[in-house]
């Protein structure tokens, strides 16, 4: 049984399709694993045992009838608690949504179900996806399986930790400023932020609508590609969804050949604040790409230094409006409704009790940035920076096929270290934010352990919008070469839980 949890999604799907194992056995093995380790890891906010087993039984029944199974049928998955699931609690890591049972499935949830993916449960996250450590969850912090005293990244720490702890071979995250890639980097797993508009946001509880993007998390590049193809594609329910074919990411992941590709190293992503071991592993990866036949050049994107401040105006501004609906009128928490309080008082009391400090901070920031007389200076300027960043990317991609950088400046930091220092926390997303502002595609994959702390380092690959396949082509080649060098996937070096 322990073998089952170590299999990749591709292996598991093949075994179920071949009949060497049943989907129910696979689901049960993962439910058992969650049972065994999640008290320590706290990756899950809700485990849907019944739902998972029912979905697994349906896959087995389908196979028994001789029906064709999709490429991920029967594979278990951990779903970030930011996507709505009909009949299954969805909290977004917030007290304000405690007890809410959505009456509808997100488009992504529907696609997973249609693909026969077995949803094990909902994973922990920073409240409303605001954070880089999962410490902002209202339901406790998630531990990093490499070292439980350290953060698993955020906001999607629960999904990344579930992968690293072998609780699920696949997970879903959302990436607004790095919430898929940074947790991937610090847990030694793979995370992809697809091109903005390629995965439907219908049913994704909005943090910052123009930046939010759902995407795949996995332990291998190929598994991420399989999940990417299952969830991406046009959705008429999301007006910002791109009506174009999904790039052939699975084929690209299998190619393992970067010969002739031009790869740009972003000059601005280095220097002060970057951990030595992170830079060492990153530079080795660049060298490896050269060895594999890619041409590597240095690229300058001067506007990227403005990305962080622009992000912290745009994201909170949109959040202040998106979160206005949590007013205790229709769903979720309601505090102080004793028959004498007015609607406004109930709303105020509920928000006071239901939102955590980081969420309040960002609502206040955003409300201020949008207010009359400040709009041009703050939100307006930030949008201009956004345009400049897109131009820097355009210029770079005129010369190179992909850009590379460290995913995050440091390895996983200890829980509590940056909790009282928002600026230090925000720096974790320094390298990931530009892609959100430009709406292009980016991946993080493990590229080794930092020598000073033996913790995973992430390599970030960035591709132009709708060229997501390039991420998988480069990522697949790097992963294969590194596994050859190490003799095993990096995650096997993680201590047993």
């Amino acid at each position, binding site marked *: 049984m322990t073998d089952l949890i170590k299999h990749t999604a591709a292996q598991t799907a093949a075994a179920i399709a071949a009949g060497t194992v049943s989907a129910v056995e696979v689901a049960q093995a993962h439910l058992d694993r969650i049972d065994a380790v999640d008290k320590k890891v706290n990756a899950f906010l809700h485990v849907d045992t019944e739902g998972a087993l029912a979905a697994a039984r349906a896959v087995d029944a389908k196979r028994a009838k001789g029906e064709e199974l999709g490429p991920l049928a029967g594979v278990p998955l951990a779903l970030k608690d930011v*996507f*709505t699931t009909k009949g299954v609690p*969805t909290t*977004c890591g917030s007290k304000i*949504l405690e007890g*809410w049972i*959505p*009456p*509808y499935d*997100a488009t992504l949830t529907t696609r997973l179900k249609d693909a026969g993916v077995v949803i094990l449960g909902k994973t922990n996250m920073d409240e409303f996806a605001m954070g880089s450590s999962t410490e902002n969850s209202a339901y406790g912090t998630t531990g990093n399986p490499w070292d439980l005293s350290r953060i698993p990244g955020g906001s999607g720490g629960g999904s990344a930790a579930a992968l690293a702890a072998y609780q699920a071979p696949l997970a879903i995250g959302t990436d607004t400023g790095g919430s898929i890639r940074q947790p991937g980097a610090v847990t030694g797993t793979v995370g992809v932020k697809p091109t903005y508009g390629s995965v439907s*946001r*219908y*049913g*994704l*509880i*909005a943090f*910052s*609508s*123009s930046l939010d993007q759902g995407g795949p998390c996995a332990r291998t590049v190929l598994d991420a590609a399989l999940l990417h193809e299952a969830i991406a594609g046009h959705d*008429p*329910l*999301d*007006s*910002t969804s791109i009506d174009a074919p999904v790039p052939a990411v699975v084929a690209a992941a299998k190619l393992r050949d970067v010969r002739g590709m031009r790869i740009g190293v972003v000059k601005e992503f280095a220097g002060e604040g970057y951990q030595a071991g992170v830079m060492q592993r990153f530079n080795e990866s660049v060298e490896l790409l050269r060895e594999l036949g890619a041409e590597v050049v240095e690229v300058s994107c001067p506007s990227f230094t403005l990305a962080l401040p622009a992000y912290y105006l745009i994201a909170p*501004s*949109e959040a*202040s*409006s998106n979160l*206005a*609906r*949590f*007013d205790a*009128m*229709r*769903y979720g928490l309601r505090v102080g409704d004793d028959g004498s309080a007015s*609607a*406004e008082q109930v*709303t105020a009391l509920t928000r006071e009790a239901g939102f955590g400090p980081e969420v309040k901070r960002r609502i206040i920031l955003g*409300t201020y940035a*949008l*207010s*009359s007389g400040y*709009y041009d200076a703050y*939100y307006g300027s930030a949008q201009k920076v956004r345009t400049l960043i897109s131009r820097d990317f355009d210029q770079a991609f005129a010369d190179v096929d992909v850009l590379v950088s460290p995913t995050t400046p440091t390895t996983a930091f200890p829980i509590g270290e940056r909790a009282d220092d928002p600026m230090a926390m925000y720096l974790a997303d320094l390298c990931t934010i530009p892609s959100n502002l430009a709406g292009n595609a980016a991946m993080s994959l493990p590229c080794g352990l930092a020598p000073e702390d033996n913790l995973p380092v992430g390599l970030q690959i960035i591709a132009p919008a709708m060229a997501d396949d390039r991420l998988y082509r480069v990522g697949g080649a790097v992963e294969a070469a590194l596994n050859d060098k190490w003799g095993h996937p990096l995650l096997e070096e993680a201590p047993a839980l």
Partner: protein
Amino acid sequence: MNLVSYDDALASYDPVMGLEVHVELGTKTKMFCGCSTELGAEPNSQTCPTCLGLPGSLPVVNAIGVESAVRIGLALNCEIAEWCRFARKNYFYPDMPKNFQTSQYDEPIAFNGYLDVQLEDGETFRVEIERAHMEEDTGKSSHVGGATGRIHGATHSLLDYNRAGIPLIEIVTKPIEGAGRRAPEVAKAYVAELRELIKALGVSEARMDKGQMRCDVNLSLRPNGTETFGTRSETKNVNSLRSVERAARFEIQRHATVLGDGGTIVQETRHFHEEDGSTTAGRIKDNAEDYRYFPEPDLVPIAPAREWVEELRAELPELPRVRRARLQAEWGLSDLDMQSVLNAGAVELIEQTIAAGAPADQARKWWLGELARRSNETGIELAEQPITPAQVARVCALVAEGKLNDKLARQVIEGVLAGEGEPDEVVAARGLAVVSDDSALGAAVDQAIADNSAIADKIRDGKVAAVGALVGAVMKATRGQADAAKVKDLILEKLGAA
């Protein structure tokens, strides 16, 4: 407060108005989701995650809503934006599901237009249009347990989100200057003309009594001969043509009273009261009100293709003003006669009656005469009277054929209105056919001559004008069913005066 008279107000001050009209579009589905817009459904039965603003839900623009907005813009002689966006208007209200309204801000779909309106004396006044933009309606709150139905004193409130997300077009005028004492009349005529336009476009029934069209009257005064606008008041939700006129008139008098006493007008919203035509203060609108508009990130910009806009322009129906001029010419009416047709709201009715075969003068006579009288008596609008243009046309035909006279025709109409069936059925059931049988009439005429010998003698002596009295007697005897012209001929013949 004792208000100064309207004349005194106008002697010192010049009114400037701004009119904001919200039109609920008659699309089948809401502006941003697929829910039905049908009125009168069970509360909250026409809702979905999107119009309830549930976490995770997203809007999708109703293409018919956009098309309607463009058509309204074109009919109002507006420019149509080549590129525009929706914006979020952020404010809190319990019946607004997302606590922001998806609207348009600095990039409306239509702008810079005008609407020519006709005043009661036939004169034309041009009202300039600032913009027409798309937005969504809110839900509806009802406050329960209080005496007034308002929130104060209520024990609880009920929320119905069926209306939330219904498409609205907001049409905003530029400041209306130069109307002087006719400002209230201009306001009414503008809203009336706009309503006709919206109906002609077929984008909404524009029933003000059903809230499908709602008007805000913004008004300020400035001393005569000055240019700078005074502080305005915003009278909200004035929901009939008559009320629009009354609200403007009241505010002119109120502002003049306050200003005349050396007071200042507070910028505030005001409620209009149908009962006495007055307004009272609502919420104060100072600069602290900040909607924090920003472009709606959940929707992509709208860029109406020029060819499409031109197609819509070419397909616009005949607009009310043009149509009225054509009908007036076709019907051969004077300006004054046409105005009375318009005032009675009888244009379509007469047009349809003519289409059903009636002569223009007859159609107009019945709708503006007998039916208008009944409309006034019952307080039911002419168009709502339970008689169809086809039925009126049939009555006209019966008169033309000599089977009914006017008096009988009125009885037939009465019967139709009373639900007794088609005109021919009423004629049969009530036995209302004109008596034109010579022998039966002859007997009645003989009787009348015998009963009124003195009058008969006068007629024999050549005083033919006296015949009316005898005709009346015959008509009375035949209970009005005789053909009066024929009776007159018969009497004169019998008395040798023909």
